[in-house]
């Protein structure tokens, strides 16, 4: 039963309110720059790659782990796929996605081996593989930036695969088809988490690992799924990034991991595991994107964006912590001495 109080206690709702309020403020202060379709398209476009990554980070966080290696997986997937396409001459967008997904999956499974079989702490493993994957890429595959339009036709052309195009003040504004990939993946992750036993296993492991084991969940298999799937998502995200940026730059993407994790945490996922939703994550992504792309419209200098994101993370993590503290106090007052 969803009463008003329960609604307010949900972080998804709080972040939704914050989002609406922020939009209202920007719209009031700078309506001409903010309230138009091209700007909305711009914000959505900026959400796509972060959003895809965030879906993976969400799964890992719910299971009680943390993954910081996905940017390295994404850039490996993009760069290697581009090299393969150039070398083989098969210039196909579906092939790019298939390759990206597969490379991502393979690298994700490397994480899974260390985490699932050797039982190493997730942060340490993924910090290691973050550097390992990226270092190997730069050493073996090269560090030269590849402009897609110089080496491919179809792949480079995907940049212009738009689903909606509207006239704008200068030229026209478009919404890229990859927003559909984000939405499709979001739907998939939502379904997995909510309606499959695998998804419930992820929540169960994040809630109480030992209880999950006793209940009969296969922890190792679940972890292989989680980290493999996160790798796959990172690979797809990497290809989308390449298409949107029109290039495969081995130095790109790495560094976005904290923003992505921040978005997921702001969206209500618990760092300690067990909690988090797809809708909250998408709202978190939207909020982070709005801040980094539109705070300028408020006259806030770009240097302050980092400050605001940092503050939001602390508030976002602080609210649930305060709530649980309040609950605990109320609980001890109720039960008193044992």
């Amino acid at each position: 039963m969803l009463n008003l109080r329960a609604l307010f206690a949900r972080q998804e709702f709080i972040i939704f309110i914050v989002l609406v309020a922020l939009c209202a403020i920007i719209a009031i202060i700078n309506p001409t720059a903010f309230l138009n379709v091209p700007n909305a398209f711009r914000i959505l476009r900026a959400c796509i790659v972060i959003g895809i990554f965030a879906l993976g980070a969400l799964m890992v966080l719910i299971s009680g782990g943390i993954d910081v290696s996905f940017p390295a997986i994404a850039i490996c997937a993009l760069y290697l796929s581009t090299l393969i396409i150039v070398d083989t001459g098969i210039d196909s967008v579906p092939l790019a996605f298939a390759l990206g997904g597969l490379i991502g999956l393979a690298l994700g499974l490397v994480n899974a081996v260390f985490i699932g079989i050797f039982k190493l702490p997730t942060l340490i493993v993924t910090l290691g593989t973050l550097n390992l994957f990226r270092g190997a890429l730069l050493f073996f595959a090269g560090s030269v930036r590849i402009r897609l339009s110089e080496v491919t036709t179809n792949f480079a052309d995907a940049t212009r695969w738009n689903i909606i195009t509207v006239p704008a003040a200068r030229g026209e504004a478009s919404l890229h088809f990859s927003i559909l990939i984000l939405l499709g993946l979001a739907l998939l992750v939502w379904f997995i988490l909510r309606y499959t036993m695998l998804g419930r296993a992820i929540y169960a492991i994040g809630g109480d690992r030992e209880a999950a084991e006793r209940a009969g969940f296969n922890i190792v298999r679940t972890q292989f799924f989680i980290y493999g799937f996160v790798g796959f998502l990172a690979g797809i995200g990497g290809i989308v990034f390449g298409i949107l940026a029109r290039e495969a730059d081995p130095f790109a993407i790495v560094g976005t991991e904290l923003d992505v994790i921040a978005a997921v945490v702001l969206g209500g996922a618990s760092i300690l595991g067990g909690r988090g939703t797809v809708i909250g994550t998408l709202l978190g992504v939207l909020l982070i994107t709005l801040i980094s792309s539109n705070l300028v419209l408020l006259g806030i200098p770009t240097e302050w964006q980092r400050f605001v994101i940092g503050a939001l993370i602390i508030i976002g993590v602080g609210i649930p912590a305060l709530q649980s503290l309040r609950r605990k106090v109320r609980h001890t007052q109720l039960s008193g001495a044992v």
Partner: protein
Amino acid sequence: MTQELLRLEKIVKSFAGVQALKGVDLQVNSGEITCLVGENGCGKSTLIKVISGVYQPDSGSIFIDGKPVSHLRPIDSIRSGIQVIYQDFSLFPNLSVAENLALNDQLSQGKRFVNWGNVRAIAQEALKRTDVKLPLDALVGDLSVADKQLIAISRAILQDARLVVMDEPTTALTGKEVAALFKVVRNLQAKGIAILFVSHKLNEVLEIAEKVVIMRNGEKVLDTPARELDARKISHYMTGREIAESYYDFTAKPNETTLLKVEHLTLPGAFEDISFSLRSGEILGITGLLGSGRTELAKALFGESPAKSGTIHVKGQVVNIRSIQDAIRNRIGYVPEDRLTEGLFLQRSIGSNIVTSTLKQLLSRVGIVENRKVNNEIGQWVENLHIKTRDVSLPVRSLSGGNQQRVVLAKWLSAKPQILILNGPTVGVDVGSKEELHQIIKDLAHKGMGIIVISDDIPELMATCNRILLMRRGRIGEELVTRQTGEGELSAKLRQSAV
């Protein structure tokens, strides 16, 4: 109606050459409530694990429904209707009540997808079977220990349990919650489900059990209908020695200043207008029900959540206790009720736990920890309090409940307090250790310490305290002199204070 459900014959189990079970027989009938009691390390837990199939006995036979079972694995045990509810319940705090109830069932059916309508239906069915009312959508993490236990029981019943084994189910429950639990247990019994109840609390055992099985040193020493037993007899069989606890008498020395005097102490919402005094050498009991404010009062005296008004005198001087540091400066010590979360660093060694609050006094002149002094200090407490361990560098976690409680005590005693507040000093401690702890408390008082014992364990209060304050809704309802009060009288007064 009573039909043999489970029978164990001459079960032997050894670990690394040590016999944990030395040929134990046990029979459980359907619809029967059996209590299994014994001190820590008597083999109770091993026996339960044999029943649940976690351990394979070295020799002996197991019969289920009269048929011999050659190799009982956990899954066989569950399939024959045996469900063990562990002390930690194995629940998921982040999931809803409904899902917690239904999850195991869905897993064992090999479901791949979740039908939420189904989950609710299963959960409702589970609660109906145990006749328990709980909000299906609440998160389990937000519920009380008692509710969590009811969920664990309901979940077990859902899997068509015929025998439910409960390991120390009442340790963390209040009196009211225990009563509610017993109602559920009797309800199950009426449905023909057998209950094997493992407990330390003798009065509860006597209240609920039809049959009592007592174990000592891996052997069954008694197996008899409960009506033939009383608490004294049970402790006798458990420990192998007669435990006769006597009253604690105290006569004040005429011209000595009162050690602790509390006047009109008030913390709105917790306690109000509390006045009492404590003399050196006295053991003062404070009791009261759920929410009576007794723990809050202790925490106020210890500066953890200071009172808003009123005065505290220590040795005739008004003192201002606003923080734990203030309390320690006035040599007030507090042993919390939940030693696991409040009192100890479980992963750290026994030794370092003992000296953690007094390390400063063990420094050499240049401020470096002097190992010799530290080791002396640790050795002294381990000896004085009879902490049973082969090595003080082992983590505290490796100790039994009674010994953990002694480490907490040692930690505070090493700070040489003049006033010691003990909150539930023997919760989760077996009978033998309990008596020893009581003796330690009395010895401390004899040496001149003023002690406050907060407890709802009536025999404990009767055995240790010379005076008892009964708290009721944040106020002191009555002051009783132990010598002039019967156990039954105190227990009746405690129950009445609920209304």
